[in-house]
Every structure is written in structure tokens, then in C-alpha cells.
């Protein structure tokens, strides 16, 4: 009877995510049998990158406001625009416009920035959730919107973006707590180590405005995050809800924020840079885990032991970006090597043949698709970080090939 109930529930779940649709079924079957059909072959990075960028364009076109739809879901289709991730997708579009010499991407990025301006609260904060949800200010989301606004200002020279960024920064400084953490206006009202990704935009704002309070707030938060780091590189307070088994996604956020902040604050060698050193410690632990197991789990415990058997693809590409950036700092080729392999794995999961606009070129939340992270969905941030990883990987490998006379 239990088996019958379990099977019935599984069937209900499959119907709920509309697994009967041919494109969904095809993908589900492929993940179930873990097949690598020619449709998911690995090609040159430029092909995978273009497919991901086209998917992001479709995600933008799926909403009427210029923002980028948060995700494509098997159950409900495209969702509404998401301010947080639209914020950090903007730099990717500007980068790709430069890379491809395609002005369209530049224009799209500006549209996104304009939409962000329209959803900013009077306080300067940006809302949590996507545009369809109830509007409430959120610290992390505000930091990510700032990443886009700062870049829009740099690309267009339009002061309106800088002003919005400054207001956002002021709000962040005003709601920061004495120990450097942000708790109020945060997910589950708790402090998160991944707020390093908020400190980093504040440092960028400081670089433009020379206003010391942005720098002070950022450093205070970074130092609080350092106090959360364990000797094995692990960060406490790294999860969305609790610390038991955070997603690789939030671990990678934490590392990235430290790394990029460190690069802005103390651009010396990693040995002298406490933030980069902290990022390196955690990244090396992940690299070892990945290389030994040849698989990157989607969630980890505090001993860096994988707790699940699915892979969080967003976290994977965020991690490869961290490894690639750390390679630039340290010239430790093991980090580059790990990034190349993990990027290949994510490339192999990108469907380049599907006829479905929500699937073609997108990056799943989890592999297999029913993994816990963005269950049966394609988040826009996975495609964004994947595109970034492709761009950075190509830049580094081409430079290496040129140096060795291979280009």
C-alpha cells in the first residue's frame, strides 16, 4: 500500500510539472538514463555561450517590462522579471556585446537597467522575489541590483544609474548592524556569509564616489564573514535557512564576494590578501573534493562532504568562475584545470537541440532536473553564470595559448 501511495504521489508530481509534454519528457528521460546523446555534445565555448545568451534574450522577451524572467519552470512556464538577477545579468550582456560586436546586447542591457530603476523603492532598496510577488526590501537583492546599475553607469556614462546605485548603497549602510552583518530585511531575518556579494558592490561604489562609509560598511561585513570561516575553509552561516547543508550556489557566492572584494581592497599577492586567502582556502577544498570524486555535489556539510547526489549547475559555474579568477591571482594551474573540467560537465548538460524555447540553450537548476535546487526549472542566473564562465575561460585559455605559441 505504501509503495502504491508513493508511486501515486510520484505520478502526481510528474503531472504537476507537465512531464507529459514531449520536450519535458525527452529531457526527463535523458536525465533518468544519464545519457549523453549527440544533442548534448560538447562544442566550442562560443557555441555554448551563444546558446545561453539567446536563452537569456528569450527570458527577457518573455516579460513585458525589460527585466529578465527569473526562470522557466516545467509546471508554470516563464516567470515574472526578477530584479536581483536582472541586476547581475546586466554586466554579462555588456561583456557579450563587446565580445560579439553586437549592439543589440548593449541595448538589451540598458533596457534591463531602466527596468531596475522603475522597481527601486524610495528608500533606495530593491525588492525581494520576482515582480509578481509582494514587494518588500531585501539586502542581498539590493546589492545585486547595484552590480548592474554600476556597470550601466560605466558603459553609458548616464549619472541616473550612479545615483540609483548611491541610493541603494545608502540604504544598505543604514540597515547594517554593528557587527557588520545584515539581518533585518534579509531572508529568514538571519545574517548570511554570502553577503560578501553585497560588500563587493559597495566597494565598487566607493571606488567611484570616494565616499568612505561604503568602504567601511563593506570591510565590516567582510571581516564578519572571515570570523565565520573554519580552519578547513568552511563558512558558517552560508545557507539560506540553516547551516546543515548549504547549496554550492551560496557557498560560491560567499567565495566570489571575498575574492572580488579582496581584489579591490588589497591588490597584492594572495599571501598578503586575507580575503583572497580565505577564498582560496575554501576553493581548494572544493577543488579537492571535486577532483577526487569527479562529481560536484549540489550541497555540502561543514566537512566539505557532499550530502546529495545531484549537482547544482549554477553553483558549478559560479565555482569555476571563482577557480578561474583565483588562477589569475595565483597561477596555480590546478584551479584552471578543475574549472575546465567542471565547465565541460555543465556544457554537456546544456541542450542545444531542443525545440522548446525555455529549454534550448538554458542551464538547469539541478542535474538531474529533479534535483532539489530549482526543481524542474531553468533559472536565469544559471545561464548568466554559465555565460560568464565561458567568457572568462576563453579569455584565460586564449592568453595561455598565445603565450605558448598555440593561438
Amino acid at each position, binding site marked *: 500500500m505504501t509503495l502504491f501511495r508513493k508511486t501515486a504521489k510520484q505520478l502526481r508530481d510528474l503531472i504537476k510539472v507537465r512531464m507529459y509534454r514531449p520536450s519535458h519528457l525527452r529531457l526527463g528521460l535523458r536525465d533518468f538514463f544519464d545519457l*549523453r546523446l549527440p544533442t548534448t*555534445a*560538447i562544442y566550442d565555448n562560443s557555441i555554448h555561450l551563444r546558446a545561453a545568451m539567446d536563452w537569456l534574450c528569450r527570458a527577457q522577451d518573455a516579460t513585458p517590462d525589460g527585466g529578465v524572467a527569473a526562470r522557466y519552470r516545467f509546471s508554470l512556464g516563464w516567470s515574472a522579471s526578477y530584479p536581483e538577477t536582472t541586476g547581475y545579468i546586466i554586466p554579462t550582456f555588456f561583456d557579450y556585446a563587446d565580445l560579439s560586436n553586437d549592439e543589440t546586447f548593449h541595448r538589451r542591457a540598458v533596457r534591463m537597467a531602466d527596468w531596475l530603476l522603475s522597481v527601486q523603492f524610495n528608500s533606495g532598496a530593491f525588492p525581494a522575489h520576482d515582480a509578481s510577488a509582494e514587494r518588500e526590501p531585501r539586502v542581498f537583492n539590493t546589492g545585486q541590483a547595484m552590480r548592474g546599475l554600476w556597470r550601466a553607469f560605466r558603459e553609458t556614462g548616464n549619472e541616473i544609474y550612479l545615483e540609483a546605485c548611491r541610493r541603494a548603497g545608502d540604504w544598505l549602510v543604514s540597515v547594517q548592524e554593528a557587527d557588520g552583518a545584515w539581518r533585518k530585511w534579509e531572508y529568514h531575518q538571519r545574517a548570511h556569509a554570502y553577503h560578501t556579494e553585497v560588500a563587493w558592490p559597495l566597494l565598487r561604489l566607493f571606488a567611484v564616489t570616494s565616499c568612505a562609509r561604503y568602504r567601511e560598511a563593506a570591510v565590516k561585513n567582510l571581516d564578519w564573514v572571515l570570523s565565520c570561516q573554519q580552519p578547513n575553509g568552511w563558512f558558517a552561516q552560508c545557507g539560506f535557512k540553516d547551516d546543515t547543508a548549504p547549496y554550492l550556489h551560496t557557498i560560491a557566492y560567499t567565495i566570489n564576494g571575498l575574492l572580488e572584494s579582496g581584489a579591490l581592497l588589497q591588490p597584492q599577492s594572495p599571501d598578503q590578501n586575507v580575503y583572497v586567502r580565505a577564498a582560496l582556502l575554501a576553493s581548494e577544498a572544493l577543488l579537492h573534493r571535486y577532483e577526487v570524486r*569527479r562529481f560536484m555535489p549540489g550541497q555540502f556539510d561543514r566537512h566539505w562532504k557532499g550530502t546529495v547526489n545531484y549537482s547544482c549547475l549554477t553553483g558549478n559555474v559560479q565555482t569555476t568562475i571563482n577557480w578561474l579568477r583565483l588562477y589569475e591571482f595565483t597561477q*596555480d594551474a590546478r584551479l584552471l584545470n578543475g574549472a*575546465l573540467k567542471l565547465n565541460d*560537465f555543465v556544457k554537456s548538460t546544456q541542450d542545444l537541440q531542443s525545440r522548446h524555447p525555455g529549454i534550448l540553450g538554458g542551464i538547469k537548476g539541478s542535474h538531474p532536473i529533479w534535483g532539489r535546487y530549482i526543481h524542474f526549472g531553468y533559472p536565469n542566473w544559471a545561464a548568466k553564470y554559465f555565460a560568464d564562465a565561458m567568457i572568462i575561460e576563453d579569455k584565460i585559455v586564449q592568453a595561455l595559448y598565445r603565450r*605558448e*605559441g598555440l593561438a
Partner: protein
Amino acid sequence: MNIVLLCKSWNHHKALQILTALRDEQLIVRGIVALAEAAKKTTFADFVRKAYAMGDGNFLRGVLSRLHQNGMTKSAPEMHARNVHASTNGFDSAFHSSSTNDKTFSPKREDGATTITEYAKQYHIEMIVVNDLNGAESVVALQRMQTDVLLLGGVPIIRANVLSVPKRCTLNVHMGLLPKFRGMNVTEWAIFCGAPVGVTVHQVDPGVDTGAILYREEIDVSGCTNIETMRAKVSATQHRVLAKCTRLLAENRLVPQPQKKEDGKQYYAMHEKLRKIVDKKLSQGFTCLNSCHVLGLIDKVVQAREELGACALGLY
């Protein structure tokens, strides 16, 4: 001194080369403890399928290269390796027939022995086949053979329970110069980093290539034009060095030099894009750096050996 070889019963190539080198050094092998073929978790064909599925170019390149050498593939391994990601359909066409899929490959030898079993029979060496090299069966076999020195011939990670059995030590030969290059593909990594290529004989401890160093030998790879030829040259040297080292150890002419963890890094399988760089460097005639600058420990080892008067081998 009772010398025992630990190997896989199906990995004939490496084990046979070690046995031959030991014989050349006039060392008598007390016994062989081999992992049963039945203990293979997957068939050979499964490994290749998995390599295709995972898009593991390095692994596949190695496998196909060896298959090609043994006349089992239709076309050049390089071609298959390049197409590794392109199609799983390539798998079946990579083989002459499905019947070859599960064959193990071993070199043609002058003495005619092509398997460990045949070799053991021919030279009257006791051979015990076990289902788990780290299991009680293996420990009992090694104890019964009164093992003094245990040699590893291409085996998975050996646990402390087995490592504690030999009265003197367990030896392994590593295809890189320790302590700097630990782990996998270290010959390629040495070239990539512009460091000397070589082999190291070391005592085995529970870490990865972290045991005390007994002996190192640099190898001139300037004549090698690609990774395959370089690896073949290093591979040919490593068995000889392991055998010589075993003899020196038996004669009490080697002093173990402990490693420090921070003296080296653990490397992992190298990605295809980085292998291209290594191939390019080799094709341009890679030459080693002065090893004394790269590996300070060499001086100590040479010194230790000179004190023992063991430089007659002409190494270093």
C-alpha cells in the same frame, strides 16, 4: 628478503614489467597477491562507455591509445579522443567487433607469458588471488608469505591494515619527482610547469604520494615529441628504477627522506586543453630546468647516497 608484489590480475602490462625488472636485478619474488578479475566493478567496455558518457578525454585517450597499440581499434586514437564528446555512436565503431570489448591487453613477451598467472606458473612464484586488496584475505596472504617488502604494481589506494603487514616497508614508484608533483598526470604537469620530469621511489603511507622518498631519477625527455612518447619513456624507466631501488634497499644502501606536506601539491588528471600546451612544449623540444633549483631535496638525497657510497648506478 621476502618481496611480494601487489597487483591487479588483469593489469598485466605494469605488473609483468616490474617482475621482469626484478628478475633483471636478480631479485627473487616470494609471491604475488593479485586482485581477482571478478572483483572488477565494471568491464573494460563499461569503462570506455563511461569515459564517452562523462566526456573524460584524458581517460579515453589513454585507453584508446593502448587499444590502438594492440590493434584493437580501427583508426588513430587521437581521432577518437577528439570526437569523444561528439557522439556515443563512435563507441561501437571504435572497436573491430563487440567481442574485443572485454579483452584485457598485454604486451607480447619473449618468454611467452602474457598474464600474471602464466608468469607465476613459469617462474614458480606463489600467486594468491583475492577479492579485495585491502581485505582480511589479502592481509593473511601477506602475513603467510612473511612479507618484508611489498611492491605496488598499479593498484588502487591501499589501506593502513595492509601497509602495516610488511616488516620493512611498502614501495611504490611514482611517475614524477616528489615531493613537488604528487597525484596524477604528474609527467604532464611537470612539463606544463617547466619543471624536470622523472620518477620517484617512495615508501607508501596512507596519504597520496606523501611517504618518505627513497630514490629519484630525472629523465631527459628532450627527444620526446608528444605526451604518449614521453609517458612511454618514463614508464619504461620507472620499473627499472623500482627494481634497482628494491635491491639497494635489500642491501641497506638507501636512506628514506621524509616529505613535508607543504613541499608539494597534489595534481589531478589534466584537461585536454592543457595537454595541448604540453604537447606543444614537447614538440618544440622541452628541456628540463636545473633540478637543484627546483627541488632542493635532490641535494640531500644525493648527499645521503654519496655517504653510503651508492652512486655506482650512475643516476643523477
